[in-house]
């Protein structure tokens, strides 16, 4: 393109906008639904529809293992997946700050297409706006998504009952650690990367193996601690987890120790917490391990009748303490 930075003209809807569309957006996203370039997309759905939206404002925009585009696709795909749906179509709205490098935009949209392909979703419609320098932080992305609810499933905290097992799909805190390392210029081993990933194929396998799964949640902002507390309150049950069973990479624990964080509260972008009847737990674990994102899946605790509304943790040395609801954003602008 003539200009290597996004200008206000790129968002003005005229010829220059069209250039951005033809040279950057369509080459990345292009598909039969989008290519019609109508005001909106017309799509066919099979029955009950899941619908979600989320906005992405992460800083830094590029971090170990990913970028804001990867988050924007995976985040919405996962939100749909956690409702027990098969994600189908996604919309992408971008608010770009004047002066944003076209090259970075290309990297972001290319990543988005790649993640959409992996998840098996179609970018069906979109919008691009440009705002004056200083009015946005590089780029903000909003994605909305719709999906077909998998028939016969019923995801609701009200289905959580004492005796159910709590399953976690893998190592926690990686995403937040990667972001914090990027922000504070902390050198981490290359192994610490965002865990950002589309989980819809894994959750589909889980639900096919065990349609009686009570709850699926992705522990993003607020981490595993927030998810467990929300479910404990909503289900009026207690939850007791075992510290020794929660997988944390030593490097992530190291960053936490350095910055005074607890990994249980750190955001994840490619993890899933499931509440399943005890008799289905093994089936669910087996289904999870068929996915590259569920290789480390394990039972971390169970639902209890005692201490309703509360999350307890059996500590490494055998004590018990409470895992409280996080108070606020410990690391802002994480996704």
């Amino acid at each position, binding site marked *: 393109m003539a200009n290597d930075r996004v200008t206000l003209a790129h968002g003005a809807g005229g010829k220059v906008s069209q250039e951005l569309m033809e040279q950057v957006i369509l080459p990345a996203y292009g598909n039969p639904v989008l290519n019609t370039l109508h005001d909106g997309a017309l799509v066919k759905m099979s029955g009950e529809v899941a619908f979600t939206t989320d906005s992405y404002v992460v800083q830094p925009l590029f971090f170990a293992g990913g970028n804001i585009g990867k988050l924007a696709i995976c985040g919405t795909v996962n939100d749909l997946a956690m409702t027990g749906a098969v994600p189908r179509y996604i919309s992408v709205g971008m608010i770009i700050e004047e002066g944003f490098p076209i090259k970075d935009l290309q990297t972001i949209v290319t990543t988005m297409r790649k993640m959409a392909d992996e998840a098996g979703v179609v970018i069906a419609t979109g919008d691009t706006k440009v705002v004056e320098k200083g009015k946005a932080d590089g780029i903000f992305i909003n994605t909305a998504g719709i999906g077909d609810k998998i028939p016969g499933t019923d995801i609701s905290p009200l289905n959580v009952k004492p005796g159910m097992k709590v399953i976690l799909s893998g190592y926690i805190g990686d995403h937040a650690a990667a972001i914090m390392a990027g922000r504070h210029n902390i050198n981490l081993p290359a192994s610490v990367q965002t865990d950002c990933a589309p989980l819809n194929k894994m959750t589909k396998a889980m639900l096919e193996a065990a349609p009686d799964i009570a709850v699926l949640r992705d522990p993003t902002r607020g981490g595993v601690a927030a998810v467990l507390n929300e479910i404990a309150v909503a289900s009026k049950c207690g939850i007791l987890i075992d510290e020794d069973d929660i997988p944390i990479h030593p490097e992530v624990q190291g960053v936490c120790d350095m910055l005074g964080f607890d990994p249980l509260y750190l955001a994840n972008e490619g993890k899933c917490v499931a509440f399943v009847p005890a008799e289905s737990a093994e089936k669910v674990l087996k289904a999870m391990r068929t996915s590259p994102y569920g290789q480390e899946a394990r039972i971390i605790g169970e639902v209890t009748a005692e201490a309703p509304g509360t999350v307890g943790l059996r500590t490494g040395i*055998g004590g018990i303490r409470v895992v409280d609801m996080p108070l606020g954003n410990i690391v802002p602008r994480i996704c």
Partner: protein
Amino acid sequence: MKEKLTKAEEREFAQELVQKIGELAATTGRKLRFMEVCGTHTVAIFRAGLRQMLPETVELVSGPGCPVCVTPDDYMDKAIAYAQRDDVIIATFGDMLKVPGSKSSLNEAKTGGADIRIVYSPMDSIAIAKDNPDKKVIFLAVGFETTAPTAAATVLAAEQQGITNLFMLSAQKLVPPVMEVLLNDEEVHVDGFILPGHVSVVTGTGVYKPVIEKYHVPGVVTGFEPVQILRGLYRLVQQVVKGEAKVENEYTDVVKPEGNPVSMAITNKVYEPCDTGWRGMGVVPLSGLKMRDEYARFDIEEVLPVEVETITKKTACRCGEVLRGIVTPKECPLFGKACVPTHAIGPCMVSVEGVCAAWYKYGQGRFAYGK
């Protein structure tokens, strides 16, 4: 070198220690009370659920180990008064923002337009001073022996770089003098001290000896792993049973008897002991640090004295007593009701290392899990 224990071995070892501590403590025929005087220990103890694991005969009580919590109202009032000046930028650790003074807090001053910057190290305030040559940058130097060397090093760096617009508002505190105050306090009953790990890394173990021997109360320096704390507790019980009172070191990997002479030398070059006020304990002789005459030009109270009228409000907040280990947070009428981490009234709830915050966060005081 001992090999690292597996998690299962660690749990077994911890349970063995708990049992030994209980059996030995029972031979004294009374309940033993040990105090930790370090906020990091407080948090480590709660995080591990240690208190609930201990036998009936041993009780842990938290002391004045959180630097933010022990900072008195008048210091906060001064900081706020400086913050409200147009020619001042305050640089501070984030915890200080919410600590109440007698009338308001730094947070309120910030909302009102005061320029207050959160830093992660005192050294960060040097960059702020360089970027704002027309402003006086004041770092709120709060902390124990652990942080004093960094504050002192910052002063030395500012001197070396010819920076003339960086100042300290000092409330540095020393641990041994306040231990003496606690031991002289008739309301405080302590059978021994879990001595702070980080402070001891800097000071070494010798600094506690005079007070430990004078009051014949055992002390053990420990690390922050639950098993290290339990080993320290076992040693404390052993000393009590034998009628001994000495300083022992359970953290030998990290804490040397002589401490860190380089750090101590930096502190001593810039600072000298002075009397200072502690929340809930009043002025404690020689328990603080002030800048020596040669560095008085970095002391904002010398350069630009400020008068504040501190009339401590009478509230139901019992932080002063909580800090001395006389009452537990549960006995404060505000705890968990009017005073919670999101709406903290007392400083012990404000700081993450505060006793009330730890009680609240890790659940004790609200309920015991499963009971």
